[in-house]
Each structure stands twice: as structure tokens, then as C-alpha cells.
């Protein structure tokens, strides 16, 4: 398998404010995420996790360095071009549920396709299939407030990867969920990445971060360490009776 790099950041820096107000939120970040891979960003509060995710998702621009998504260099693109790139390639899942409240679950998912000119019936059909894939068969007509927290995150994940979108960016997606629901949401993100999506997961929780292939730890805006899971899983002695 040849690695298909979906997200690439090179020497990325981000500074907010100036003078005494100046904050170097990110410094010299090099990061690549390939299709089929889940990378976790972890670190203390204020270490730059959200800033990194926002830049990776073209919601914010770096002060220095370069970034490319699906092979396209973002430097120099205007607002409209960035919006189009986001719609085509990137999906977001935030802690606070970000579904459009006036739309049904199915419509939330089909919207980006419709905006891209996919015929309505076709878009709805794809949304239906995407809902099945995240275990929400038959819930296309529910509004956000008619779904549980975990179900809303599932809708957000389905929407994040609809059509040709294959970069899933999640910022503390389990923050508002209980342990068990959180785990099933993480499992879903993991399985979508196993199925070929590229995922970047921001979390301060070591247990959730450990779902990733690589865990990148930030400290004061810099990459402090990167840990990989073992190439061959360890063998453990079974415990049974």
C-alpha cells in the first residue's frame, strides 16, 4: 500500500496578538496524516491543540509554514476557495454538538453534497446509507434535539465523511459524553479511519488518545513527543476461570 498523505503541515507556527499580548500558540509543527490513520493530539490545556486542529481544518491560517490538504497547498487560497476545500474534503466533530438544529439528521448529512450539486434524491440516499454505517438506521428524520448526545456525535461523524470527504477532525468529541457512550464514539472514529479516512483527534484524555496509531503530545505550542503503537501487538497471558 502506498501511503496517501491527506494532511501535511510543515514548520507551522501561529502567533496571536503582539507586544506583551503576544502568544506563540504553535511553534515549528511538522505533521502528516495519511489515509487510514488516526492521529491523536494531546497535551495540557492551552498547549495549542485546538489551534492546531483549526489550522489543519483551514478554519484558521498559520502565521508561518505551509499546509496542504488532499495534495492542495492552502497558502494563497482566498476565503471562498478555502470554504470549497473544506466542504469537499474536511469534516469536523466538536465537543458541543454542531448539527444545524433546523435540519433533520439526514439533511444535516446531505447538505454538503447538495451544496456540491449532487441531485437531491441522490444526496438523501447517500445520507441514509451513511446513517446506516454509523448505526443510526431509520433516524434520518429526527431533529438534533430528538437524538441523544452519542447519536448526535454519530451524525456529526457520518456528515464529516460524506461524499469524497476523508479528513475527519475531532476536537474533544467525547467531552460531553459519559464513559460508555464516549467509548462507542471513539470506536466509531477508529473504525472509520480503519476503513480509509484520515483522522486527527484532539483530546486531553490519555485513554481516548490511545485509540490512535500515533499520539502527538504538545507542550507550549511545540511537539514534545510522538508515540506509536507497537508494530506487533503484545501477547498477554490470558486470565480465565
Amino acid at each position: 500500500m502506498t501511503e496517501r498523505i491527506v494532511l501535511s503541515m510543515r514548520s507551522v507556527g501561529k502567533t496571536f496578538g503582539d507586544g506583551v499580548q503576544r502568544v506563540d500558540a504553535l511553534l515549528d509543527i511538522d505533521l502528516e496524516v495519511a489515509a487510514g490513520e488516526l492521529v491523536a493530539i494531546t497535551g495540557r490545556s492551552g498547549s495549542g491543540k485546538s489551534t492546531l486542529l483549526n489550522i489543519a481544518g483551514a478554519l484558521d491560517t498559520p502565521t508561518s509554514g505551509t499546509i496542504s490538504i488532499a495534495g492542495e497547498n492552502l497558502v494563497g487560497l482566498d476565503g471562498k476557495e478555502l470554504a470549497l476545500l473544506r466542504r469537499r474534503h474536511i469534516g469536523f466533530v466538536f465537543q458541543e454538538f454542531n448539527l444545524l438544529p433546523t435540519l433533520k439528521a439526514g439533511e444535516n448529512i446531505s447538505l454538503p453534497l447538495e451544496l456540491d450539486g449532487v441531485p437531491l434524491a441522490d444526496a438523501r440516499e447517500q445520507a441514509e446509507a451513511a446513517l446506516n454505517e454509523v448505526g443510526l438506521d431509520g433516524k434520518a428524520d429526527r431533529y438534533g434535539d430528538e437524538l441523544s448526545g452519542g447519536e448526535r456525535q454519530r451524525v456529526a461523524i457520518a456528515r464529516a465523511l460524506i461524499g469524497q470527504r476523508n479528513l475527519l477532525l475531532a476536537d474533544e468529541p467525547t467531552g460531553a459524553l459519559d464513559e460508555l457512550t464516549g467509548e462507542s464514539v471513539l470506536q466509531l472514529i477508529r473504525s472509520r479511519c480503519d476503513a480509509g479516512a484520515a483522522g486527527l483527534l484532539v483530546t486531553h484524555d490519555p485513554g481516548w488518545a490511545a485509540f490512535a496509531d500515533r499520539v502527538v503530545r504538545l507542550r507550549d505550542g511545540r511537539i514534545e513527543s510522538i508515540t506509536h503503537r507497537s508494530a506487533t501487538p503484545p501477547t498477554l497471558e490470558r486470565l480465565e476461570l
Partner: protein
Amino acid sequence: MGIREGMLALLADGPKYGYQLKREFEVATGEAWALNVGQVYTTLQRLERDGLIEAHETDDKERHSYRITDRGQDTFVEWMTQPIEPSVANRDDLSMKVLLAMTSGVVDAAVVIDVQRASTMTALQDYQRLRAETPETDLAWMLLLDRLVYQGEAELRWLDRIEDRIEQASTERETTITATRATTTAVTRASGSTND
């Protein structure tokens, strides 16, 4: 868990012969714990002597099967329902390393913490992957993996916490030194003024 409790657990399930107990014990512990026949018979003799099991039937090779007695049943249930004493790991290697780093000054405590954090995170990543690949129905395996995951998480939280404490202690030490100087000056001044 001891062989004794293992034998009692298997006998609580119904009378069995020694060779059956040996085989079932090995299967139950995932073949990880091989027993020799001698160990099995010594254990059974002790259990019989203590009145926890008794001879039941004899086969054509003159071998006895055993069954659990009421007292054996009670002993087993009591053992199962007693909490296991929490092990107070106040001398574990990691704590020792961190403390020694703080006192010796040869290796920075932060380095010890970073190295451990990376290693524990890798292990945690491996456990999460194993968990994902294990069918939910394989309860025995899940039980073990869940435990390892929570232990790993706890260790990582602890590492973050002691890192904070060490940082805090070093800034406080600086503040204390400055504060002590200021107080000393103030006291000197005060005593100076009463002397006036």
C-alpha cells in the same frame, strides 16, 4: 490466585477426580499455569485434612474423586467475597526513580517522567487496539484488557500530576526563598525599631 482456591472453585462446580482437576485448572488458566500431578494431590490431601473436601467415589483404578464439603463451600464463598487488600506501592520502582532524580540531580525528574509517559502510552495504545480486535463476547479477555487500560490511564494521570507538583515545588522554592529574605528584613527592621 492459589492452587487451593482454584481446586475449591472447580469442586464447587461438582465432584471431580484429581486428573480432571489438573486438566480443568490448566484449561481455566489458559494453559498459562501448568501443574504437576504431585501438586494437585498434595493440595487435595491438605484440603481433605482441613475438612474442606471429602472423598466421593472410587473408580476401577482405585482413584478417588472428591467433593466439596459445606465448610469448603463456606470457605470458598468467604474468600470470594472478601476484598483483596489494596497493595500499597510506596516503594515501586517508578516512584523511587522520580524521587532519586529529584534528590540526586544527575538525571532530571522531567526526563524520567517523559520516558515513562511515552512507554506507558505505547502500552495503552496496544491495549486499546487489542480491545478493539476482541469480540465483546470474550469476557475473560475483556476483563483483563479493561484492567490494563484503566491502570495505564491512571499511571499517565499520575505522571501529569507529579510533573505539576515538581514544577510547582520548584517555583514555590524560589518564592519561599524570596519571601524568607523579605520577612527576615522586615523582622530585623521591626526589632530594630523596638530597640529605639
